[in-house]
C-alpha cells in the first residue's frame, strides 16, 4: 500500500484543521484520522517559552525515516508530521502528527509509534525560557522516552 508522507520543519505556527482536511480530503476510503498535538506547557508557571533547536536536513530526513517505518508496519494511507523550531510560547503547538487509514487501529498505532520515535530519535533540543528571567537550561531527555521505544519491538 502506498502512503503519502508529508514532513515539514518550520518556525511558523500551523493550522491543524487544514492538515487534517489535506490528509483525508478526496480520499473516500479514509475511515480514521488520528492526530497528536504536542503543546508547550508552563511547568507550573516557571516557564514562559521554549526555544527549539534542530539539525537542519537531518531532522527532515530522520522524521521521514520514522514515517517510512510506520507506513511499512501499518496500512496507513497518509502520514503528516510538522515540527516547529525557534521560540514557542506557552500553549502553542510544537509538533503535529496526523495519521489516516481505513481503520482506527492502524491510525492510532502509527501516530503513537511516530511520536515515540520522534521524541528520542529526531534531532531537536528544547531550551527553557524561565518566567523569572534567570537563564533557562536545556531540557533533559527522559529515560521513560527511551524505554517507550522498546515496546514497539514486541508486537
Amino acid at each position, binding site marked *: 500500500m502506498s502512503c503519502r508522507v508529508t514532513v515539514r520543519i518550520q518556525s511558523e505556527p500551523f493550522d491543524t484543521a487544514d492538515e487534517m482536511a489535506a490528509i483525508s480530503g478526496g480520499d473516500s476510503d479514509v475511515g480514521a484520522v488520528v492526530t497528536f498535538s504536542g503543546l508547550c506547557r508552563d511547568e507550573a508557571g516557571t516557564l514562559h517559552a521554549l526555544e527549539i533547536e534542530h539539525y537542519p536536513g*537531518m531532522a527532515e530526513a530522520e522524521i521521514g525515516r520514522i514515517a517510512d517505518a510506520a507506513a511499512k508496519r501499518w496500512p496507513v494511507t497518509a502520514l503528516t508530521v510538522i515540527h516547529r523550531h525557534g521560540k514557542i510560547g506557552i500553549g502553542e503547538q510544537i509538533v503535529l502528527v496526523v495519521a489516516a487509514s481505513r481503520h482506527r487501529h492502524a491510525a492510532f498505532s502509527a501516530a503513537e509509534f511516530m511520536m515515540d520515535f520522534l521524541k528520542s530519535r529526531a534531532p531537536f*533540543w528544547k531550551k527553557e525560557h524561565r518566567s523569572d528571567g534567570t537563564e533557562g537550561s536545556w531540557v533533559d*531527555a527522559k529515560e521513560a522516552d527511551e524505554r517507550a521505544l522498546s515496546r514497539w519491538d514486541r508486537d
Partner: protein
Amino acid sequence: MKLVYFAWVRERIGVAEEDVTPPAGVATVRELLEWLKTRGEEYAEALKYPEAIRVAINQEHVRHDERIAGAREIGLFPPMTGG
C-alpha cells in the same frame, strides 16, 4: 571533515561547526571524541561524558563503534528532546 554541534555541545564548544582533519589512527566515533577532548578545555568540558553524546554521520544516527572513514559531516549533540 565537517563537524557540526548542537544544543549544549555547541554552547560548550563555542562554535556551531568547524572543519577538522583528525590524525591517522582516529578510526571510530569513539576515537574521534577522545581526540577532540585533547583540543582544549572547552572540548574537554563538552565531551566529558562521551557516552552521553549522540552522533550522526552524514545525518544518520550511528553508534560509537562506527568507523568515520568517508564521513563528509559528523554531528555531535546531546540526547534529543523534541516532540
